[in-house]
């Protein structure tokens, strides 16, 4: 009976993994297709489409914009989210629980609703500079990832460590930098990674705030699909996928994926 249950579990797990990974494999395969129309089985392999990526209309500005927004929003979120997490995790703040919930709530909000709300809100106060509105909107998206990870990390952090550092000759900020930051390095890395990825591939919020000249990469990619669906897009997707995998592998080497998933210490 137990044996049967284990077999069923494994079959389900493998089926689920295949179901999740299959589209990614198809995309990767399609990117090497020698013909503009993707057809299985492949009749050969070509890197032709990879060469065409850089010639896509408006590709470079969009990539640059997405990277800028992702990097800046991640950096700001790391600082603000960590400070907020300290206030919440130390527990001296009245209503800390409410703040924590409020901070993390955008995670539970549908992106579309968030996008419309931000668009209306920014319009109402006359804040329409596209680059800046995108950055602020992405802060709303990335801050919860950082706050959640840092609150969890800080809950395990012994603040006596900072006091120890102070009695050993550190100022308070010095103690934070020399002791808390290194001790929380894994949390920072995880928070930064999730935050960066959440910003980089965000579509539903960005679409409301982008204009003709300010389009993030996901928006630009959807536009390509509508205009000319050829394997160039598959090649681009495969590159992004590869980049993400490399990022995850590096992080795994540094802190361990099981910690990133939050399943154990």
């Amino acid at each position, binding site marked *: 009976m137990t044996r049967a249950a284990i077999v069923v579990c494994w079959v389900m797990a493998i089926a689920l993994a295949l179901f999740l990974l299959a589209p990614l494999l198809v995309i990767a395969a399609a990117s090497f297709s020698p013909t503009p129309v993707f057809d299985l089985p492949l009749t050969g392999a070509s890197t032709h489409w990879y060469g065409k990526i850089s010639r896509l209309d408006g590709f470079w500005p969009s990539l640059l914009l997405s990277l800028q927004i992702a990097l800046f929003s991640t950096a700001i979120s790391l600082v603000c989210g960590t400070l907020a997490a300290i206030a919440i995790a130390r527990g001296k703040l009245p209503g800390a629980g409410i703040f924590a919930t409020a901070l993390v709530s955008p995670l539970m909000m549908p992106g579309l609703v968030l996008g419309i709300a931000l668009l209306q809100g920014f319009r109402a106060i006359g804040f329409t500079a596209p680059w800046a509105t995108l950055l602020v909107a992405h802060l709303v998206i990335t801050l919860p990832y950082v706050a959640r990870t840092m609150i969890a990390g800080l809950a395990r952090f*012994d603040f006596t460590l900072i*006091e120890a*550092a102070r*009695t050993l*000759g*550190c100022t308070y900020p*010095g103690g934070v930098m*020399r002791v808390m930051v290194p001790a929380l*390095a894994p949390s920072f890395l995880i928070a930064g990674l999730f935050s960066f990825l959440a910003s980089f591939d965000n579509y539903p919020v960005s679409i409301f705030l982008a204009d003709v000249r300010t389009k993030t990469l996901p928006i630009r990619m959807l536009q390509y699909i509508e205009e000319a669906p050829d394997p160039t897009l598959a090649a681009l997707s495969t590159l992004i996928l590869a980049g993400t995998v490399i990022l995850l592998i590096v992080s795994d080497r540094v802190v361990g994926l099981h910690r990133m998933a939050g399943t154990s210490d």
Partner: protein
Amino acid sequence: MSEATPHLVVRGVSKRYGPTTVLDHIDLTIRRGELVTLLGPSGCGKTTLLRAIAGLAQPDTGKVELAGRNITNVPPHKRNVGVVFQSYALFPHLTVAGNVAFGLKVRGAARREIDAAVERALSLVKLGHLAGRRISALSGGQQQRVALARAIAVEPDVLLFDEALSALDRKLREEMQVELRRLLQDVKATAIFVTHDQDEALTMSDRVAVMNKGRIEQLAEPRELYLRPASLFALNFVGLSTRIPGTVLAADNGKVDVETKVGRMSALGNFQTGASVIVAARPEQLRLGEQGEANSAAGRVRSVVFQGSRTLVEVDAGAGESLLAELSGRDGAIPRVHDEIRLSWPVAETFAFPMEVQT
């Protein structure tokens, strides 16, 4: 003698958290090289006093002087104090040597100087062979030693121990008490221990400050503290005793006659006639039978506890009062449970304390 000059002076230090007074005008003077324990129950203010000396808690009033310097408003990183925390607070991202070197690195000491100091500190706590280990690979006792080495390495003016031994198991703790005292005396350190463990206080310190409700009830050498407790609280907190309530019948020049439910007794103390007092004596003062210049009471033995060289005998003296005697083998026969016996103890070793108002 320079040994006798005050090294650490706490004067009139008070601290309130909201409506609670945690420290109530504390005065404390410690000589160079002295080992002093702040002893008291949790919430008595001992840890807050330690934190005020370390600079981690700012007193509302009063003054702290260390090595001739007023440090009341000096931040902790400029005080030159060493603290060993209850949780040890070792830095998990550094090795043993990295932890010990931390204070010197922060102070910008030269590399060679740091290496020498780390080696010296680690050999002092006998951990030289573990310098390259990660903190998480150490046992509790080893972590305790690293914390000590880290605090000593910067050669602080005073070492502060906040319940530093309480996380160790009993046997290891008792070994560490003796070893730590010897080590601190070797390096001529001035140290303050905070503990609620009376054995630790008596073993480790030159003087013990018994604290209660934000005040120092008594500051005395361990022996004096035990033999001449200054208050009922000090009597209760350190060691065992027989305590019998009564009313003062007559008072004469530091001596009182007290009427109790188990008979009339004489005790040392200054009280008005009619005052409610508690008459107390340490268990080793009680002897079987009568003796001269002594108080005595009779009763039925309730329990006999054999403790090796001594035997603790508890006697029901009637009227809800009990006597506690610690008899050694020399006193002849040890009574058995239910025996009717008479115990006596010298008037000179009987104290009277004011009855504490119940709060």
